[in-house]
């Protein structure tokens, strides 16, 4: 088990994994989100090459209603 900070809160995951793996593990539709790791937004085409490691700060966001 390793611990990330996801959306501002600690979250444990089984092991290091790539962004697509992380999203799949959480049942997230990758079409609808954007991801940043350690303050940098990761373009979708680069997701498979980015592995989340212990201590990483991850943001996963979506669109919601707003004005």
């Amino acid at each position: 088990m390793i611990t990330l900070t996801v959306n501002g809160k600690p979250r444990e995951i089984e092991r290091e994994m790539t962004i697509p793996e992380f999203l799949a593990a959480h049942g997230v539709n990758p079409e609808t989100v954007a991801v940043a790791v350690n303050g940098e937004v990761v373009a979708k085409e680069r997701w498979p090459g980015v592995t989340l490691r212990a201590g990483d700060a991850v943001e996963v966001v979506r669109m919601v209603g707003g004005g």
Partner: protein
Amino acid sequence: MKDDSASGTNDYLEIAGKRFRSRLMLGTGKYRSPEETVAALEASGAEIVTVAIRRLDLDNPNAKTELDYIDWSKYTILPNTAGCRTVDEALMTARLARSVTGSNWIKLEVIPDPKYLLPDPVGTLEAARQLLDEGFVVLPYMHADPILARHLEEAGCATVMPLGSAIGSGQGILTIDEIRIIVENTGVPVVVDAGLGAPSDAALAMEIGADAVLINTAVAKAQDPVRMAAAMRLGVEAGRAAYLAGRIPRKPFASASSPEEGVVRV
């Protein structure tokens, strides 16, 4: 808008090279249901629609939102950085917005104060410059400060979006003189954002020469949002047509509308 519209067939709003017939941008926050959101969008005739960017709840990642009901092929999506208190938060949110929407348009908001929700002139200009460097089309929300509008235009922003009054307050346009000056001096479209409460406010914005308005709360929180969306559309069209028609000047005195000669005297 039909060909026989009051504004005429060749009247377009153009932002960053893209043309729109509608001059009413609509927000998607605060509706009572997804159905109302979709129907209000439809009734408003809006072509540009704003959304916010928020953290996904990873424990409930597939909860549907109102946005899942919208046919996005019909609208230009305009994500905002609402809620961002600092330049860095706004930059990060803008970049995430580009990634999630696939569009480089961003409604930029840098709002340090959670009570009055007023935008930071200095931070907004700084963030705008950075985002423009990164290739964004920036539509900055701002206090109705004509000199700030000039700075933002000179930096390369696609529009300026001065506030009418406190966001969500429905107080209408309390900054009318400033907006007149901004309209007179600004080459990019002027979009009045925040505070509009009724079609009369939207019409007034257009009558003084604003190019468009952005409305959310006044539609979403009306008792009948769909009818209010239609009303706002009419108000914007009315104001635009009046601007093109050239209104009479305000005069401090009366003048009769019937002839003064030939009255029957007793």
